[in-house]
């Protein structure tokens, strides 16, 4: 069974078909790319898969369980986590706290423990802050654990977003333009990190990207979108050489 299965997914905004008849099948532990020119509807797909928008047509399943139309919260609990194109961190909280918010749903102590500092509070806070530190170490952020997230340099903010998403222990990770605004060196480093995340956490990753070097470097398969419809899909190099794709990107 595939990790993510999307069938005929579509959404319209006031008569405009933002996405139409999208079909995807992503296998476990696969690195899959969703690419296309600006305005092709890529982020809209992410928004549907994470419950921000309710799709008008079609369905999708995670590991065989249908999640169409569920709320963001439920979908995250079921195992889909994401990052955002325009970084969305908790700016006035420290780096460690950002990750701890991601871990929140696994923590169990109740309100009484919070108010009264019962033993459960100390035990869980200790355990989970250790887990947060481990996650931060993976992304080379441990030394900044007490810095405010908004004071991090751009590249590290992107990494922190991935760390926070992973903290919710997802089965499927959606990355929305992880390399946006990065220089070639940073992009190369990011590619290594993404590969590493896949190995270490046995993660399935779907990513949106404009940087073709990154896509060709790490994605096994891609789907190319244009004006909300699928132009081509399949193995990365084949799909990118499809005449329709070349035409969409370069014109006639």
């Amino acid at each position, binding site marked *: 069974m595939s990790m993510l299965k999307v069938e005929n997914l579509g959404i319209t905004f006031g008569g405009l078909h933002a996405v139409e008849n999208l079909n995807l099948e992503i296998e476990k532990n696969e690195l899959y790319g969703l690419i296309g020119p600006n305005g092709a509807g890529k*982020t809209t797909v992410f*928004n549907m898969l994470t419950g*921000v928008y309710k799709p008008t047509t079609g369905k999708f399943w995670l590991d065989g369980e249908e999640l169409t139309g569920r709320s963001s919260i439920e979908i995250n609990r079921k195992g889909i986590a994401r990052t*955002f194109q325009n970084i969305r961190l908790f700016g006035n909280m420290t780096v460690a706290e950002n990750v701890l918010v991601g871990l929140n749903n696994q923590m169990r102590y109740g309100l009484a423990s919070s108010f009264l500092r019962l033993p459960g509070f100390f035990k869980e806070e200790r355990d989970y802050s250790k887990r947060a530190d481990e996650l931060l170490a993976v992304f080379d952020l441990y030394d900044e654990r007490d810095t405010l997230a908004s004071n991090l340099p751009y590249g590290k903010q992107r990494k922190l977003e991935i760390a926070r998403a992973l903290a919710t222990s997802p089965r499927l990770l959606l990355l929305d333009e992880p390399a946006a605004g990065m220089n070639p060196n940073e992009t190369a480093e990011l590619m290594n990190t993404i590969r590493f995340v896949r190995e270490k956490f046995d993660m399935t990753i779907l990513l949106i990207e404009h940087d073709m070097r990154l896509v060709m470097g790490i994605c096994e398969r891609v789907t190319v979108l244009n004006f909300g419809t699928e132009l081509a899909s399949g193995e990365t190099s084949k799909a990118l050489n499809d005449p329709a794709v070349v035409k969409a990107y370069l014109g006639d």
Partner: protein
Amino acid sequence: MQMLISTLIDGLNLGSVYALVALGYSMVYGIAKMLNFAHGDVIMVGIYSIFVCLNMNSLPVPVTMLICVAVCAVLGFTVEKLAYKPLRGSPSLSVLITAIGVSYLLQNLALLFFKSERRFLQNFLQLGSIQIGSFELPVISLVIWGTTLVIMIVLNLLIKYTSMGRAMLAVSEDKGAAQLMGVNVNRTISITFVIGSALAGVAAILYAAKYQNVDPYTGSVFGIKAFAAAVFGGIGSIPGAMIGGLSLGLIEALTIGFLPESLSAVSDGIAYALLVLMLILKPSGLLGKKKVEKV
């Protein structure tokens, strides 16, 4: 029947004045994106200016009215320049607190100059009434309705058909983009404050003619209700302010007129309860636009 009609007339009078004040709130909110808490107190200052003019007997009524509007417009302009402009770009809460500070400042200046007792205006704009069948209609009501209606129409035309109006619309949509397109944002905001405050001046005249009294807190109580009316109608919308103001005036007049004596203490409460209900059911007001944050 007689009672109902006179209650309705009362409600429309009150509602029209509310509508004018609500319009001031709405315009400033639409363009500067701030709740100008001091707006009501500008009206209070306007009424005091009428009071002062009346005490200098020689001034003819039209001059008094002009002075009132001018005082309010200048006050609005000055407050914007001195207190609000330096805070442009600050968090909206800071701006709100500053506006509250300005409101306190104006109230306490009035308290200092005129003391806390209620002052009465002697026969300002007493126009008598006309007989319609068996019914007496006060002329001042006609004046109030006429003024409000004309101002609404003129303002609507101004915003739709002049370049200044288009500049206002542009600034209210997106300050940054308007600036890039060559709109002078600071000047547009200044003009908005001047117009809004001049409207407050007109409202002050109508209020003075109707109620003939003033104290330092007149403006803030009246202002809060007018503000509620603006939100009720959908803040930022001119017809919304009109509808909101009129409904609030009618509701208030009807509850005062027809509730049993024992419940008259809650007449304000009912207006507020309706506002709360309204916004719970329709979070952006009657005619307001809904804003969605993009992900």
